[in-house]
């Protein structure tokens, strides 16, 4: 992400996958969930579509049979920071590995008409911005991708996508966006409320003792 006088900007070429309901099993198949690390998932993003062979954890991109037709294997989309897709992106499993794979590949923003709830929440914790747009706006952007290599500039503070003369505004909760802008750690924030949690817990132990047996 870069910053200019107007705020934080994510910009560049938009990679696009014209499908609804891309589930987290497609974003990263279960085989790679065997890793006990939090990084190093870039080669496994969209594994089933990106390669023509079956992969294993630890086998890198260079050892695989690449599907040249898949967008992330094509220049300049292999360097994209922005992914455009359609409805219900990230539905299915709660695996945070899906966001880690996008992040490790270099994706900083995903634009879709809707997202799976758990994926949406996981994204903000890992510096990936999910942007919800109206279906007509998604249609418009897909139309543009068919005419040229689409480049967008996303201004985080202004919550705007800029494309030539056109500006598309998007909504995102401030507290979620702040997590990306300031890289906030949830555990640190919550532990500031330690006394309140302890008080709550003590009352609960008295009122609902069966929970604590």
């Amino acid at each position, binding site marked *: 992400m870069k910053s200019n006088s107007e705020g934080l900007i994510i910009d560049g070429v938009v990679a696009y996958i*014209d*499908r*609804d*309901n891309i*589930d987290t*099993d*497609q974003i990263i*198949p*279960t*085989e790679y*969930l*065997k*890793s*006990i690390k*939090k990084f190093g998932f870039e080669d496994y993003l969209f594994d*089933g579509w990106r390669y023509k062979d*079956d992969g294993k*954890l*630890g086998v890198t991109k260079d050892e695989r049979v690449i599907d040249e037709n898949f967008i992330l294997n094509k220049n300049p989309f292999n360097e994209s920071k922005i992914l455009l897709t359609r*409805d*219900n992106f990230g*539905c*299915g*499993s*709660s*695996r*945070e*590995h899906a*966001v880690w794979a996008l992040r490790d590949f270099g994706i900083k923003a995903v634009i879709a008409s*809707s*997202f*799976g*709830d*758990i994926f949406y*929440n*996981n994204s903000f*914790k*890992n510096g990936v911005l999910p942007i919800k747009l109206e279906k007509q706006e998604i249609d418009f952007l897909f139309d543009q991708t068919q005419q040229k290599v689409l480049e967008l500039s996303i201004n985080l503070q202004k919550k705007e996508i800029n494309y030539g003369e056109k500006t598309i505004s998007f909504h995102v*909760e*401030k*507290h979620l966006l*702040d997590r990306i802008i300031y890289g906030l750690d*949830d*555990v640190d*924030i*919550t*532990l500031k*409320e*330690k006394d*309140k*949690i302890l008080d*709550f*817990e003590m009352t*609960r132990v008295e009122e*609902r*003792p*069966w*929970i*604590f*047996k």
Partner: protein
Amino acid sequence: MKTLYDKLWEEHHVTQLDSGESLLYIDRHYLHEVTSPQAFEGLIKKNLKPWRLNANIATPDHNVPTTRGNNFNSESITDEISKIQVVELDKNCNKFGIKQFDIESNKQGIVHVIGPELGFTIPGMTIVCGDSHTSTHGALGCLAMGIGTSEVEHVLATQCLKVSKLKNMNVRFEGEVDEHVSSKDIVLYLIGQIGTAGGTGYAIEFSGSYISSISVEGRMTICNMAIEAGAKVGLIAPDNKTIEYVKSKSFLDDDTFNQAKEYWKTLKSDDDAKFDKEITIDVSKIKPQVTWGTSPEMVLNYDESIPTVFDTKDENKKNVELARDYMGIENETKLSDLTFDKVFIGSCTNSRIEDLRQAAEIVKGKTIASNISEAIVVPGSGLVKEQAENEGLDKVFTDAGFIWRDPGCSMCLGMNPDQLKPYERCASTSNRNFEGRQGYLGRTHLMSPIMAAYTAIIGTIGDPYEI
């Protein structure tokens, strides 16, 4: 004026943060080997310990082989990478003192099966786990949801979840079903109607005369798949059946249990509660459901024609085309035209004793079809396995040609040795028919244990009303 979800939310609400989000107190946290290692690593890095040890219960399930036999331990796993993850769970649980039903325990099993059956899930709790099928526990009147690994770390460290409130949806199932229809068909039908994003942003309460009429296990199957309708929370108000079920599993002393029971009776939506969305479904018209494509919403009555691009609306043509292609559907027009290779009865959706009884009833005295190369039954836990064996169900299955396995997630997902080979077609009682879910290029058709049992015997999707 309050819904059950509202009541559970208020009951666990610790405080509202400056950001507008709330801290919800978490009563129970389940852990398994896949989504916990990075969370423990984070905890160690921050030099923190679990906030309340006895809130946490762990078991390995995703990676474990289901052909273990005797004297098997974590070190016996032959897949080196899977072994690391299971051993890592052992290490983390030992290090922090978290109660684990490890691979050697006769109580090990799929986390969503063992939680309720060991009495750790009781009504009115908030329950989380790094697994989207945590919604299962909502069947006992809990506010239960799947979380990511960052949140697993957060719950370990703070005993709270930082969340915003969901909207309320009420799905009322009314009427009676016929003998071939089970709760799996009901939830698949719902997903077919509202789509896999239909419940996104909602907590879905399931109610109505049908819900009252079914067992707690049947209710678990419905709440389990709330997430396949997009809702991370599915829940059902506890009734006398729930209380009897919980009593039969409980480790609480009688006084505490009776005290709890009085509170549990208050856990229901008020008559005048306001839901943001309400749906009523007449279940008497629902037939056995089978998925044909690569999303749970691509579901049909067992005897319906498979959609083609020609009979599909424009906006959905591409989805249908891609799904038909992946599923290897060419000239076949009906599900009964497809030839199956494997049958899987198991998963957190359908591996409880009732599921196994229903399937066994159908296969009893019969033999699996010659085109079925492998049919496996994977009980959800050590206790389910033991119960089934006491009832002789294992023998019914093996006599018919099924293989009887040890508990685990098994073929629901390709993390352990139970996987489809490329292009194999499987009748599966699991919850997701996503591309590659059961193995690279594998083809999954979701259905009930009853329909999977019929498919094993016939070799394709048969008409249960003619058999």
